[in-house]
């Protein structure tokens, strides 16, 4: 199969989640929507159901969600609700609603209330602790995940076993491993993986069934690994932010010979950095996996008087061989906004140029972004 044909397969999944959802349902499977961030998707898989990530949409406009939201909320959360209200996701059997930021806290209530009112589907509430690592924090995560587990059991109609969860962890570790490998290879081979294709491959992972996805991705990775060393002559950057999956926006990078060396994006690498233990108590393994997450604007840093995250991202840029960083700033996302000054400080300190692109998912005109990216590419290639 040609590389292009492989990318096409991932694109088909990435751009048409609704079609996949219908297929899963037609095959008699139960499907659970998973909102950002850090939900233990392994449990959905262990329950024998299909998890589908819901991170807003690039093709929708907020209409029905206005009944619940004021305007000053990120489009990711609002459009996620929109899709739950407008029928796009009606076939879901349930949805997990984490509450790790100030938008998702009240939104968890809006999801629960609206889904109950419309008798659409049960919602599964999830609150993560900010103390992830001490024993009491780990225990709290286990307690929360146990709630999620019990609710999933109800929807599945049978009880998952610890063995099921252990098996799921193995599947997910492989899944993450393949994604990490792909991110690395895509960074090494921009001549073969465009920014648009890179994103589609990663995005498809939220919708496809994990074992099938991992298998396809491993095949793609093998082909990429076999390529001769890259003769790429454009500039490489690192992307950062919550999400940047809009193909129209990403095409601007491709058009300007700007490649993504690696990323610090929540929707991409931030969620695949850490694996879970395959032995021992699987619930504790999942709690520990969350505990080991780090360098994220959404997570409390106990060493808060240092600038660990800023420096981590600056190092990521250096080690990846990129020349600069592009920050996609979601409008109204205060966790990202709060950490921007210290990210900037670390980047400036390390002599790494960056630009901040204000975006949201209802953006259709990328003229300004194009100008900024072009100018940035010029600066970096000097």
């Amino acid at each position: 199969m040609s590389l292009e044909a492989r990318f096409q397969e991932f694109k088909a999944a990435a751009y048409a989640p609704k079609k996949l959802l219908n297929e899963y349902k037609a095959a008699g499977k139960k499907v659970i929507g998973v909102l950002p961030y850090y939900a233990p998707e392994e449990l959905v898989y262990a329950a024998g159901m299909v998890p589908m990530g819901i991170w807003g949409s690039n093709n929708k406009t907020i209409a029905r969600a206005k009944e619940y939201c004021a305007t000053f909320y990120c489009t990711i959360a609002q459009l996620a609700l929109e899709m739950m209200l407008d029928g796009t996701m009606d076939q879901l059997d349930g949805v997990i609603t984490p509450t790790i930021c100030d938008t998702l806290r009240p939104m968890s209530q809006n999801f629960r209330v609206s889904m109950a009112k419309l008798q659409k589907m049960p919602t599964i509430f999830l609150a993560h602790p900010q103390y992830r690592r001490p024993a009491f924090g780990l225990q709290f995560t286990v307690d929360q995940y146990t709630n999620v587990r019990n609710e999933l059991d109800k929807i599945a109609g049978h009880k998952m076993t610890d063995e099921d969860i252990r098996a799921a962890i193995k599947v997910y570790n492989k899944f993450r491993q393949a994604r990490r490998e792909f991110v690395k290879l895509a960074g090494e081979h921009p001549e073969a993986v465009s920014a648009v294709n890179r994103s589609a491959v990663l995005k498809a992972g939220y919708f496809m069934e994990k074992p099938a996805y991992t298998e396809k991705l491993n095949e793609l990775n093998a082909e990429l690994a076999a390529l001769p060393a890259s003769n790429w002559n454009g500039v490489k950057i690192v992307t950062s932010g919550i999400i940047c999956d809009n193909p129209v926006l990403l095409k601007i990078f491709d058009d300007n010979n700007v490649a993504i060396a690696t990323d610090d994006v929540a929707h991409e690498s931030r969620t695949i950095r850490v694996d879970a233990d395959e032995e021992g108590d699987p619930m504790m393994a999942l709690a520990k996996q969350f505990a080991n997450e780090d360098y994220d604007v959404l997570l409390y840093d106990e060493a808060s008087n240092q600038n660990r995250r800023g420096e981590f991202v600056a190092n990521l840029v250096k080690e990846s061989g990129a020349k600069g960083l592009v920050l996609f700033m979601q409008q109204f996302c205060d966790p990202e906004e709060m950490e921007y000054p210290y990210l900037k400080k670390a980047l400036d300190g390390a002599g790494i140029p960056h630009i901040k692109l204000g975006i949201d998912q209802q953006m259709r005109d990328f003229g300004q972004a194009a100008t900024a990216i072009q100018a940035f590419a010029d600066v970096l290639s000097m």
Partner: protein
Amino acid sequence: MAKEVSPGVKALRKVVEDVYADARKAKAEGKLVGWSSSKFPCELAEAFDLNVMYPENQAAGIAANRDGEIMCQAAEDLGFDNDICGYARISLAYAAGKRAARKIDWDKEDGYVINPRTGKPLKDADGNIVMGPDGKPVKDPKTQTPYIVLEDIYEIEALPEGREKERRRESIQPYRQMRMPQPDFVLCCNNICNCMTKWYENIARMCNIPLIMIDVPYNNTMDPNPENVKYIRAQFDNAIKQLEELTGKKFDEAKFEHACKQANRTAQNWLKVCNYLQYKPAPLSGFDLFNHMADVVTARGKKEAADAFDLLAVDLEKNIKEGTSTLPFPEQYRVMFEGIPCWPKLPNLFKPLKANGINVTAVVYAPAFGFVYNNMDEMVSAYCKAPNSVSIEKGVEWREGICRENKVDGVLVHYNRSCKPWSGYMAEMQRRFTADLGIPCAGFDGDQADPRNFNEAQYETRVQGLVEAMQIRKEMAE
């Protein structure tokens, strides 16, 4: 209207002034001063005799003193986006050393450059406004104030000793919130919002100081689950250990119990005062409570605060007997004010209420600060119940409770641009208020600290709409 300040109000003001003065004194003596989020368990800090300041209260004060915009702008210049909560922006600018200051008149030995646009019109002996040669009213020089500029304490401190340094130091706005000491440690409890977590981490980084954190996860049920209580209880022990390390002192059980006792008294007395709004007509203006909140925030664990609320209750009792009220107009309608007020625009908020005879007889801050408990586990549960950490059902229960008890005719909802966790489910709440209580609701857009986000014309229209709806409802009832 001659403003006579009652003994209770005087006492309440003094309590807050003393809290600030004590902290300034402590700092001058080289003692530790901390900054704390408003719903951090103050009982813990009290057990160590620590001086603690409250950035939210400070930010509200700065906003009410009209310096919100210059401080918010200063934060934006540091890279903090203008979507971030205005309190956080003001506080982060302050932590970075930025100050609102009077513009120094360097041509003179002393004094500041007066902003010609400030001040009230000058009146002659007969009380008529004096007009200038340009046909515009002449300003009374006594009421005029200087231009406000941005200062930086770290820049000032870097100057050599001398007159310039002295003058620049003095030029910093003299009110207490702009003279609050810099922190030596921070106490953060994110029960009200998660913005708090990163806000305090930023302060810890800027000032290179320890952060003591209590994480209260969001609640989806009516009451906190036992797991949540256990998780938070463990953090109390953790915080105590950190405070022991910080102060080099042992946790003083007796002091802690004393603080708990006072905090309970303050909470009960606060609730008692809030409950005077149940009287119809009320012996006070609900807006008073917004001012008195400063005491519950900054001095909850202190005997003086509890006593001062007791005194205020005496004042209010007297008002009832005499049929008077602190409300400067007859009460025709009673509403619940949902949310934090727009501090920089308090007079503008009040104006159409006054014009329509509306008293605010219910505020969500009444139950929000009524932390009453009998033991440590109950204390933990109490701290789980902050306005933005409870489920929508609990939030509705609180509000509908006070709406019923305080007999409101309508609800005025502040869609507060600063406060995402608070405003995020208000639309559904509004529908429930109307469905459950049969009362009209009106929403308006504003911001608690950044005056740029408040639209006065929209506000007035919405208040007008609410009045009309309340009028119709009244007529139908008659």
